[in-house]
């Protein structure tokens, strides 16, 4: 029976039911939203040699009047610095470049893997799913560390290359862009494969049979049928990879060299080494602004899909 959305009880929610909503809501407001507002505020403050190292500081007790006083002292100096010093510009551009390239490579590697999974026999699929997810449960740090083992000068990769006489001199892998790219692709592969698999697995195979029946060769059917239908998965996978890679810190720090300074590292250095909290906050705010663009694009594509009445 088609009954409209079952609204069992539209009665007033009692205290317990309101608590179900308000406990996590309050938690997130306090520990997720408020911190961002503080970051925004500090990014407009001035650096000071004090603890905490910025001016003006928050004084909640002084109430709103002090908030307005503080607002008058807001300065955009930190943002001016970000714009004028090429160090910041470079690390933003580097991050965008790395994230874009890595996402493209991930898509190229991830799609065949996801496709292979989706076309594997039904009895194998759960096992393959677990195999893809399993590395996600092991420590991120450990997986990067495993690559240091392999990529170092006397590491297994060079040993193998030398033994096979592909190279005479061991090439340098560690502290290069290549190492960073390998590390990123390695760590984010499950994030690309899983959404792709989810869409491909749901795809009706008889669609391809119908395409073949209508005289469409297999490679063409892939372009005309499979790929368009996999678009939601591709978009989700790209979003899931691109955004965290943009702010990645651990991988470039451990595998990269001095020429791969990504924005996450700049932020970390400003904060921990230079103790320049206002600049670190400004770096964060600009990074957040950068993140809004892909998210907005994704939302648009989703809206278009749902408007298409799928």
């Amino acid at each position, binding site marked *: 029976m088609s009954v409209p*959305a*079952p*609204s*069992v*009880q539209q009665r007033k*929610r009692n205290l317990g039911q309101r608590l*179900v*909503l308000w*406990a*996590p809501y309050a*938690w*997130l*407001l306090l*520990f*997720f939203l*408020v*911190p961002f507002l*503080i*970051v925004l505020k*500090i990014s407009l403050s001035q650096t000071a040699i004090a603890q905490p190292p910025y001016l003006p500081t*928050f004084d909640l007790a002084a109430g709103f009047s002090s908030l307005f006083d503080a607002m008058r002292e807001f300065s955009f100096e930190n943002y001016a610095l970000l714009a004028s010093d090429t160090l910041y510009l470079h690390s933003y551009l580097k991050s965008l470049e790395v994230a874009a390239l890595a996402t493209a490579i991930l898509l190229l*590697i991830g799609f*065949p*893997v996801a*496709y*292979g999974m989706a076309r*594997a*026999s039904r009895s194998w699929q759960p096992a*393959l799913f677990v*195999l*893809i997810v*399993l*590395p996600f*449960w*092991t*420590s991120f*740090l*450990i997986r990067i*560390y*495993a690559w*240091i*083992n*392999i990529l*170092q000068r006397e590491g*297994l990769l060079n040993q193998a290359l030398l033994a096979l006489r592909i190279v005479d001199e061991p090439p340098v892998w560690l502290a290069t862009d290549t190492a960073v790219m390998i590390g990123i692709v*390695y760590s984010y*592969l*499950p994030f690309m*494969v899983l959404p792709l698999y989810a869409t491909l697995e749901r795809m009706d195979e008889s669609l391809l049979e119908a395409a073949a029946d209508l005289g469409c060769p297999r490679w063409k059917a892939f372009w005309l049928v499979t790929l368009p239908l996999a678009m939601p998965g591709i978009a989700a996978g790209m*979003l899931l990879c691109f*955004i965290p890679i*943009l*702010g990645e*810190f651990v991988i470039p720090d451990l595998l990269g060299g001095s020429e791969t300074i990504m924005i996450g590292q700049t*932020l*970390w250095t400003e904060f921990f080494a230079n103790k320049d909290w206002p600049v670190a*906050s400004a770096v*964060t705010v600009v*990074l957040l602004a950068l*993140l809004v663009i892909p998210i907005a694009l994704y939302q648009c594509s989703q809206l278009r899909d749902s408007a298409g009445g799928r």
Partner: protein
Amino acid sequence: MRRASWFNVTSLALGLAFLYLPIAILVIYSFNASRLVTIWGGWSTRWYGELLHNDALLSAAWVTLRVALVSASAATLLGTLTAIALVRYGRFRGRIVFSSMIYAPLVMPEVITGLSLLLLFVAADVERGFWTIAIAHTTLTMCFVTVVVQSRLVAFDRSLEEAAMDLGCPPLRTFLTVTLPLIAPAIISGWMLAFTLSLDDLVLASFTTGPGATTLPIRVYSEVRLGVKPEINAICTILIAVAALAIVSASLLTKLHDVGRQRATR
């Protein structure tokens, strides 16, 4: 019906090899007798023995475990409540803000979350240490728990709850006797996910830690920056073994359950 084409099989095999080879190499080299990590010196468990005497690592492991237990439990509670509110409460004021705050941490670079939480703790003048790390981990992992529990709740057959109420069971008791047992598997896997994420986290912990609360990833990170060491290989292998054991036992449990079902049906 499904014919495995060589292309599909090859791409799958290569993909899985890429994922597992580095881990396998790490595990093998943790049993290397030689101190030089690049030269194979025969099998040995020597580095595991030395771990037992490394007090700094052991205490870091203990801190990490406690943080993971506390934050995973809190995150499971909050995440489950969130999932219930999102699935069952329909439209309410602030729903968009609420759901954005749930999904944002899933993709947000950890440096941003970490920095902003630290600034909150500084602004509120909270002493940093065990509890601040636990709060940071709870905030991150509750979102993962929400996603896991939410997908189970969406698929939940509401007529089961209606049947319970129809048979005289008040709403709260219905939730406890019907809904909760049926979504328990999702809650448990949510807890496990939160636990491993917390064990794993470096960035949030680095920002929110204080004196005396060094977690294992922080310790491992500072060692790794100085180069590869066999002790680190050993501790990484132990961590991998723990994670693998957890997953294998969880999937075995579900498998046994399924087999039991099938056998009983016959």
